């Protein structure tokens, strides 16, 4: 009788199959990266030859030689907060201008890209106010306007291309952090 009692104890081990269950494993590879804010001109330069700047009739500035003239650059910015600004330098020649004469042509340049515009007048130093141009790729059209000479005097003669100035368009990438 005592022997049979000992044999009853191992029966508890038979209950183990309750642990039988299916187990899967899950692996995850997280990948991340970033894209820096960037602006690039794919066509960074253009030349606008205005030709003869003075009127044949009276020798004064022919504003039609400047106003409405356009040049097109191309480029892109990849950030929604990218800005565009314009800096103008007046047309001048090295020949001195005595009283009654002018050797300088001022103007306003307006750049349009992605339906945004930025402008600057050469009458004031420095760049004009920057505009948000955002995410875009394509043309940056620069148009001249508001041409003037300092005294509306006679334009000093120069050789072909002797009056030089420039319009600088600056695209600045700005990245707004995304939450």
């Amino acid at each position: 009788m005592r022997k049979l009692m000992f044999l009853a104890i191992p029966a508890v081990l038979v209950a183990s199959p309750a642990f039988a269950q299916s187990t899967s494993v899950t692996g995850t590879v997280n990948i991340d990266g970033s894209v820096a804010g960037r602006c690039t001109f794919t066509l960074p330069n253009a030349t606008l030859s205005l030709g003869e700047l003075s009127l044949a009739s009276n020798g004064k500035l022919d504003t039609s030689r400047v106003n409405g003239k356009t040049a097109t650059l191309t480029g892109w910015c990849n950030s929604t907060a990218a800005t565009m600004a314009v800096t103008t330098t007046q047309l001048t020649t090295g020949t001195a201008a005595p009283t009654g004469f002018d050797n300088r042509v001022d103007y306003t340049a307006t750049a349009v890209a992605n339906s945004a515009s930025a402008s600057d007048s050469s009458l004031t130093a420095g760049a004009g106010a920057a505009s948000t141009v955002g995410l875009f790729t394509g043309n940056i059209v620069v148009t001249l306007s508001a041409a003037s000479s300092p005294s509306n005097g006679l334009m000093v003669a120069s050789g072909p291309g002797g009056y030089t100035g420039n319009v600088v368009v600056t695209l600045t990438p700005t990245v707004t952090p995304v939450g």
Partner: protein
Amino acid sequence: MKKIALFAAATAAVLATPAMAQNVTGTINLTGSVAAKCSVTPGDGSTFTDTVAFGELAKTDGTVRTDLATAFGTKSFTVKCNTGTPKVSVDATALATAAPTSTGYDNSIDFQAAVAVTAVGVNNGPFLNDSSVAPLASTAVGSALANSASNVQITTSNYRTNNATDLLVASPTYAGSIVVVISPT
């Protein structure tokens, strides 16, 4: 007469003894089971994780880098399964950012994930899933996973934007993932 009676009684007692010598039999039945299971080595856990930080995703011209698959390389893991019918599912999620996009731009990079396993016999791998389509449902390997190190290897390929000329939208946070589930049955 008394002497005879005593003899008879003693004899009867001796003859009765053999009735106590009977055998008894005890039996212990042993049973057990092994659950179908997979586990990750080392640690015997149920998950494995790794992170690939690509850094800058765009080339100088603004389009997606062409070396991302190389940069990802091969991620190896060791998974032990104790069945002959393991299955694998794969879910690749594109590298993407919430930054808004525009014509000519893209804010996500699709790719294909490939999960190769080492098996003892028939091997239906590699198990593929492109981030542009639905996840690969649980698919039979074909035979048991080999009981060997690095028996699960993950690679990627074909990183791309919607159009090859698309520029990537600037963002410090592009994120994606590859989730692999290996089940014993």
